[in-house]
């Protein structure tokens, strides 16, 4: 089962953790201050997006703590109960508590989306930076490969990879990484080309820094923040793709709770139990709307520094 999506809730050992905790708290405070005064808060849409994102994170992180039931506990005596005080979001055809399943599913979907993006960004960073710095033959070959991968529609490629490896959540994540790295590799290469001839990098090269040092020490720090902006914009689409393929039964397998899989399960019972559709739909809507709004706000806030320099 998906290692990557397993929530990491291990509490740190109390004795050793104090300085680390303090450090974490300090960086959290700094991040909060940056958020409060940063450009994200400048636009009403950015604020709405952050609010929704906070809501979604709260639901995914604290939901399992609040939930009164286990997500996978079957209670055939409580099949298809409408929402009430006992089961806040009702129960499904196996009597499983929908609130517990939804929070677990939201957490799994969010972690999975971040995992896919992290994988896609890592691959694209390696390929894009190497191509952009090497130029010449290596660049031509790598970019030709990128062109070829991009010629296969990404969901179709993901379907094909899942078909080859077999349905399963881990395989689905791998499939989405395989189908999404190429577009980012081209973007990273463009970023790399934009920074590679900057005076300070030329100076480092003249100072005797080798290609690896230039790549890791100078190009990556300039490229990664911009790639993060791009990745933020892709978060919503990634969540939607994950949910869609899981909905088809190609991702998380029963009884694992996952947003798309829950929507797929809801299909058969929607006439008698509309809450099975309403609740996951709302969660998907909030999560993707938050991702889209935050992505837009981040792009707008960094427009001049990130986007325009790519195509000087």
């Amino acid at each position, binding site marked *: 089962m998906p290692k990557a999506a397993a929530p990491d809730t291990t509490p740190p050992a109390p004795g050793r953790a104090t300085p680390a905790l303090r450090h974490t708290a300090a960086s959290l405070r700094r991040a909060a201050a940056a958020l409060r005064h940063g450009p994200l808060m400048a636009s009403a*849409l950015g604020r709405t997006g952050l609010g929704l994102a906070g809501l979604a994170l709260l639901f995914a992180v604290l939901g399992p703590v609040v939930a009164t039931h286990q997500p996978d506990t079957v209670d055939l005596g409580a099949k298809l109960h409408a929402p009430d005080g006992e089961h806040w979001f009702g129960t499904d055809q196996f009597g499983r508590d929908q609130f517990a399943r939804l929070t677990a599913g939201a957490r799994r979907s969010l972690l999975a989306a971040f995992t896919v993006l992290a994988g896609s960004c890592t691959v694209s960073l390696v390929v894009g930076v190497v191509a952009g710095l090497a130029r010449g033959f290596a660049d031509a070959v790598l*970019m*030709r*490969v990128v*062109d*070829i*991968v*991009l*010629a*296969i*529609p*990404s*969901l*179709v*490629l*993901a*379907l*094909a*990879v*899942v*078909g*080859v*490896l*077999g*349905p399963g959540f881990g395989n689905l994540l791998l499939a989405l990484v395989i189908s999404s790295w190429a577009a980012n590799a*081209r973007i990273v290469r*463009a970023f790399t080309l934009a920074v590679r001839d900057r005076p300070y990098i030329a100076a480092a090269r003249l100072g005797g820094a080798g290609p690896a040092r230039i790549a890791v020490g100078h190009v990556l720090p300039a490229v990664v923040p911009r790639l993060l902006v791009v990745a933020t914009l892709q978060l*919503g689409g990634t969540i*939607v793709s994950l*949910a*869609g*393929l899981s*909905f*088809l*039964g*190609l991702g998380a397998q029963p009884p694992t709770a996952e947003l798309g899989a829950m*929507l797929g399960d*809801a*299909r058969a019972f*929607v*006439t008698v139990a*509309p809450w099975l*559709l309403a609740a996951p*739909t709302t969660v*998907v*809507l909030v999560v*993707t*709307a938050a991702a*889209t*709004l935050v992505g837009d706000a981040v792009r707008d806030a960094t427009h001049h520094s990130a*986007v325009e320099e*790519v*195509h000087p």
Partner: protein
Amino acid sequence: MTSRAATAAPGGGPAAPGAVPRALRSARAAGHPIARRLLSVPVTVAGAALLIWALLPLAPGDPARMTLTAQGVPEPTPDQLAATRAELGLDRAPAEQFGHWVVRALHGDLGTSYQSGRPVLTELGERLPATLRLGSAALLFALAIAVPLALVAAAFRRRWPDTLARALALLGAALPGFVVGLILIQLVVVQGGFGSVVLDGTWAAVWMPALCLAFGMFDVWSRLLRGALVDAMDSGWAASVIARGTGSRRLLLRHALPNALPPLIHAVAVSAGALWGGAAILETVFTWPGAGSYVVSSVKARDLPVIQAFAVLATLAYVAASLLADLLAALVDPRLRGDCAKGV
């Protein structure tokens, strides 16, 4: 597809004034852009085919055994396996296998379905018309929503129609098409008693899945087109056009819209690729008898030749669509044509 990056600026804005002729001159030095574009197509398609083909040996399990199992031989003898292996060409070197596969593909033979034992292209061909109906209807719906929305948003920039268009686009981005499909089935079919949950793949039934598919595409288009329209209306040449007495409606429709079309055309071509995946999901939601729902069931059954063939077909269609888009964009915007007769 390299030329797309060269011709369409990010965000679709027209390049800085004066930059265009220079960019064109350098493009001409490297050969005519459209000729280069045409030349790159076979290479890309061949590469994609190799990639798709190369996925197959990665699959765990023995294709020969899977073929036999699918054909109703659950416990094949070693002789049967060897025979099937030879029949599938699996005993040859990979390069030879690929060459064999390509030659057969060029003759219209993309293999045999593990499940049905029938030629894959026959299976897909029977279902393709329904998918094409769905896809073309979805493209038309999405255009019919996105273009007016972008025009209104650009005309009433930063006023309530613009905000409304943004909100609609956000909804389009945030609600996946298949969720819209589930909601529509619940509201229209189950509660409204209108239409059917199982659709027959005809034009009469296409509107509901097509609307859902369009719902997943229009938001990108309307945002892109609005941005390109606004860029055009804020450009230096637009100020000159206004200064000659052109009204805002004429500026929008006669000047800004044609200039904003190339990025939209490219976005539509990209969506034409994304459509294949989206169709797979929505055809399953609506039990639409198309190639998409067939592929989804094939993925679950790991019917690899079907998946392979579908990926090849989708890639061909996508490459053709983006080539068409490049030609169409060059038709709309003469600067992309590279017809630089020497200046006055």
